């Protein structure tokens, strides 16, 4: 057995492919900082600002910069900054929870479809394709309207419309793997299908799904704000960005910049998650485009 020991005695430096140096771009790093700030605001911000619900009708529509009201007050004399900061919680939750749900269910469905035979795959993917027949926003509005207004119903509606694109990403990635040598070796190992799905497929499918879902959070925040704007989400007086935009637009003539404040928050949060998703793509070394 000399050859065996011989081979071990020498440090073997050859590598098949040099690991790519993985670094986030500057824009992705900036986006990550913004995301962290948003999360911190949601966690601790409400402790630092005043009561977001208590209004003082004597001080309605104060302009930004007024002493005691950095961003001014709204139509009912409530502090806009307090409402904006407090609203971060629900806006973020309404963005995160549907994506989390869609990530789990979508990955499960996508991996199952990718590993199933022709018919199982068709059954799952064609069923999900039905959702693509309608514009996502319309579908979310329809579902939320059918379930009735309220935060939980808005979240359910969003979760349902986000499952198909995630499933598509997971299924595409799974099908890329099935014919590879190591998947054949895994099938030949005698492991159960669920073990193969969990321990061989999932580690490969997770990175692109994480990348995709991070970008999806941005979209989800916009959608959930949209539902609230239409009165299908959270009900007043609880602060939420979408709802705030809706309330503030009543004063578009008297206080034109008021509506822009929560809208800007939505925009910043959505763009930050989108850019962060792109950055993660490079960091996690995910090949190719992940678009549904």
């Amino acid at each position, binding site marked *: 057995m000399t*050859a065996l020991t*011989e*081979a071990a*005695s*020498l*440090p*073997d*430096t*050859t*590598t098949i492919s040099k690991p790519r140096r993985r670094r986030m771009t500057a824009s992705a790093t900036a986006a990550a900082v913004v995301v962290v700030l948003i999360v911190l605001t949601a966690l601790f911000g409400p402790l630092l600002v005043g009561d977001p619900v208590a209004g003082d009708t004597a001080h309605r529509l104060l302009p930004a910069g007024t002493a005691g009201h950095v961003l001014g007050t709204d139509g009912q004399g409530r502090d806009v900054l307090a409402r904006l900061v407090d609203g971060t919680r629900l806006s973020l939750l309404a963005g995160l929870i549907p994506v989390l749900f869609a990530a789990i269910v979508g990955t499960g469905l996508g991996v199952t479809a990718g590993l199933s035979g022709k018919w199982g795959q068709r059954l799952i993917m064609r069923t999900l394709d039905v959702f693509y027949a309608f514009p996502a926003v319309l579908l979310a509005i329809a579902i939320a309207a059918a379930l009735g207004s309220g935060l939980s119903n808005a979240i359910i509606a969003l979760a349902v419309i986000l499952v198909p694109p995630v499933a598509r990403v997971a299924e595409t990635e799974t099908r890329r793997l099935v014919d590879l040598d190591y998947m054949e070796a895994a099938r030949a190992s005698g492991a159960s299908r669920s073990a193969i799905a969990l321990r061989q497929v999932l580690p490969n499918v997770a990175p692109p799904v994480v990348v995709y879902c991070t970008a999806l959070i941005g979209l989800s925040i916009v959608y959930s704000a949209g539902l609230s704007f239409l009165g299908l989400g959270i009900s007043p007086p609880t602060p939420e960005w979408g709802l705030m935009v809706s309330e503030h637009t009543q004063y578009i003539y008297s206080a034109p910049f008021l509506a822009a404040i929560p809208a800007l928050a939505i925009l910043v949060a959505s763009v930050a998650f989108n850019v962060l998703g792109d950055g993660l793509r490079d960091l996690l070394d995910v090949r190719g485009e992940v678009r549904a």
Partner: protein
Amino acid sequence: MSVIPPLEVTDLTTTFVAGRRRTEVVRGVSFTIRRGETMMLLGESGSGKSVTARSIMRLYGSSADVGGSVRLAGRELLELPEQQLRAIRGGQIALVPQDPTGALDPLRRIGSQLAEVLGVHGVEGVKTAARRRAEELLAMVGIPDPKRVADSYPHELSGGMRQRAVIAIAVSCDPQVLIADEPTTALDVTVQAQILELLADLQQRLGMAVLMVTHDVGVAADFGGRVGVMYAGRLVEDGPANEVLSTPRHPYTAGLLDSLPTPGVTRGSLRSIIGSPPPVGAFPAGCAFAPRCPQARPSCGHEDPPLVAVAEDRVAACPVVNAEQVVA
């Protein structure tokens, strides 16, 4: 009297440049090929054999620094402006790559691709004549039905036929030097035999100098001519193929030959070389083979052995083996 050789390569170096990173791939390779002669560059992955061949044609453009000298029939190629070089490529010096599919335009018929090369290099400008010449060339490379093949698209042909078509294009302008970079590696062994036979036959008929790159010792032995054994960007041994491959004078050549499964060797007792060939960019200092060499001495780790004459028409870059030979 001195005849100018078709190809004279002196101290060729190729360094890939990517941003600030520079990777030395070929580190001082010299050889001369005379008219009608074959030179085989034999080596494993990362040895720089293919890069050497492609550097001669300056195929890497600005992504690599190529140093030393490459003389094609006495004319220095490394200092030639790109425009003049383009006229030479495919004309006086032609390439047969490993993958024939990539060398052909998938959207055009074989005949028109051949005719175009003839036209570009001014061999045959008249359309009908070019077409006739194309068919002659296809017949010359052993294509049984040249008219039909000339009217075919590459995907309609088998791998062997495609490689024949590529060879026809390569020899169409009567090159002085033909570079064949692993021309049969992608082919099945029975088809490989056909292509090797064809190349040997063409060389004899056309009197070309051939530079063939291969990782297959058997191919090098069968094709004959000279063989240059490459390791970590250098030639470690050079001489007539039948001599080098029967009585190697460099431990790497010897180890490579011992690694081959040949009839008569008991199973499990191939005398392999330990370790793996060093990857490009991580060539060991001193003699690059020293870490894997069974005969290495402490001095091998820092002294870079030059190629020295070890027999008539043979050079090797190992002072250890060849000192012993002198004593013996």
